[in-house]
């Protein structure tokens, strides 16, 4: 039960503990007593990583699906394609072949013409169609008697650290740090404001800084579990490498978590309704989900947009995490990213404290 009470100066029994500890405990209690929150923070990222890991696992090069239009001249072509590696051939009539191409079931249609030429129908914008064209053409030409003038050999490589899963796990970690920082802090504060609990709290001698700090302590404690779960899963199940220093990884996660916590405080600093805060959070996070290189490289966007994209906190976080985990970067190597994250931390906290509405 409770520890032995002590008597304070006014002669009252006193079993008091410090406010910051009670406030931080409150954060934990409100979190773990909300099963949905636990799911979104811990289980969802793992499910996502597992799903992506399976979808994008490194498979043997996929066979190209080819349709050959059935005419009198089609059977020698089908024979030669059947002998080629990496091709699956089916014979269809004209309209069925066109439909198969249109719906993406085949990558390319091969149509022999009466004059002996062969027509390749394919969409140049589809990578698998371009591959199919090369494979089919080589098989057809070889069957026609072409000899390759140069002998080549092949060495196949699949290196840890350069697979899609290696790319996506640090991205998911960054996205998770952002989501739990902004949602975790933002919703809790707006909810407390809506229920007039903030107003009730400032009617006590509670220090405002301790209240806000309790959210940061909570975030940092949760961070350990979040990072350990996601990285542990990536490493054990998919063999995602951890090449950089562990201390550096911890430092990146801590500063990122604080920066997103600051953004969460800022987003929640004035909103009075969950709906309002929710819209604002999506407005803040959506550009980062899209541009910051969670699922694909942020380098895919046009050069003109790069200064904007590189300045986003999540871009910096993802780049720093990948530099640490995949390249084993030096401290100097991640300094620009950490600088950007730290700038967001300082600016968002300063603004949040300035604009914060307690009523």
């Amino acid at each position, binding site marked *: 039960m*409770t520890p032995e009470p002590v008597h304070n100066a006014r002669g*009252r*029994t006193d079993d008091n503990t410090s*406010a910051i500890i009670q*406030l931080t405990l*409150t954060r934990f*209690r409100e979190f773990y007593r909300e099963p949905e929150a636990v799911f979104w923070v811990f289980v969802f990222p793992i499910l996502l990583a597992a799903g992506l890991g399976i979808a994008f696992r490194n498979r043997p090069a996929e066979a190209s699906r080819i349709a050959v239009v059935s005419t009198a001249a089609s059977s020698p072509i089908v024979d030669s394609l059947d002998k080629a590696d990496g091709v699956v051939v089916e014979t269809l009539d004209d309209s069925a072949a066109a439909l198969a191409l249109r719906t993406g079931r085949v990558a390319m249609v091969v149509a022999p013409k009466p004059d002996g030429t062969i027509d390749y129908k394919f969409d140049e914008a589809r990578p698998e169609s371009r591959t199919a064209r090369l494979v089919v053409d080589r098989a057809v030409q070889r069957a026609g008697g072409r000899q390759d003038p140069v002998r080549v050999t092949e060495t196949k490589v699949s290196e840890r650290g350069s697979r899609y899963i290696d790319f996506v796990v640090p991205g998911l970690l960054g996205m998770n740090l952002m989501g739990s920082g902004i949602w975790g802090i933002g919703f809790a504060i707006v909810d407390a404001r809506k229920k007039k*609990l903030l107003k009730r709290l400032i*009617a006590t*001698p509670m220090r405002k800084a301790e209240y806000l700090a309790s959210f940061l302590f909570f975030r940092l404690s949760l961070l350990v579990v979040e990072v350990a779960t996601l990285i542990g899963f990536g490493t054990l199940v998919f063999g995602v490498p951890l090449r950089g220093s562990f201390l550096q990884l911890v430092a990146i996660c801590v500063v990122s978590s604080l920066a997103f916590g600051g953004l969460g405080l800022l987003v929640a600093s004035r909103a009075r309704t969950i709906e309002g805060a929710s819209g604002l959070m999506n407005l803040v996070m959506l550009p980062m989900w899209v541009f910051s290189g969670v699922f694909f490289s942020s380098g895919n966007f046009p050069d003109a947009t790069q200064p904007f994209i590189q300045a986003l906190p999540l871009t910096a976080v993802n780049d720093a995490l990948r530099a640490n985990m995949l390249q084993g970067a030096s401290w100097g190597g991640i300094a620009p990213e950490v600088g950007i994250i730290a700038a967001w931390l300082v600016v968002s906290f300063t603004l949040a404290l300035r604009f914060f509405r307690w009523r």
Partner: protein
Amino acid sequence: MPAVTTTPPALSVSGLKKSYGDVVAVAGLDLEVRAGECFGLLGPNGAGKTTTIEICEGLLAPDEGTVRVLGRTWKEDGPALRARLGIQLQETQLAEKLTVEETVRLFRSFYPAGRSVNEVISLVQLDEKRGARVGTLSGGQKQRLAVACALVGDPDLLFLDEPTTGLDPQSRRQLWEIIDRFRDSGGTTVLTTHYMDEAERLCDRVSIIDHGRVIALGTPRELIASLGAGHVVEFALDGASDRVDETTFAALAGVKSARRAGGRWALQVGAAHETIPLLLDTLADHDLPLTELSTHSPTLEDVFVTLTGRSLRDDA
């Protein structure tokens, strides 16, 4: 002036004004609450009670006027003052996921000195609910918990804003007992209410507030006595009220005032047994059908009606 006291007032407010845009909430209000008394701000919804009490609590800044709480001002001694006040706000919803004990312990942690968590939980009779989540409590239990959070810092001055609004009679009585006990232990209480029975039952002195001003001040007994009426006679005339006016009844012997609200009439009279026979005769003379007749001792409600011409529970 009251008998000489050396204790400064627990709360003194003078010339208080507060507007929200064009809406004047408090229009020049003065109060003085003595140490150790239970003081009630009585008035209809929208009278400015909550604005007044929140200015006194240091949660709102007044447009004009001065407030001294326990002899100090918010500007100079804000943080020190907080530790000596206990506050219950009208609309606060405490965190639903915490238990009763965790909630009280959290509030206790904000105060440099105060009562033990167990003591306060017993004081508000929530011992059996100690481990229950706040979300599972009844309205009355939640309100007692809110008062526990106000008492846990062992305050000198307790502010309660509409503490029993929306509660069932038993829960109201339980809260009244808690407030009585705080008063008996020497604490000062300022509460707002729009229940006249609550003000009469709890308060040593009451100030009646309407449209942001104090319109009457005194003990409940003094205020009621100021009516000069021994009884209030209420009756209803089945749809025939338009056939008479106030003067008909005001002229009866012993009637201090006559008032009509819809189909119901209220006469403040010196003695009911003297006036009722005369009233019945008059009704018979005018061929008016009497459908209800009742009498009661005058209450603060009657004081309010007399002062404003409106009922406390009307939507003012």
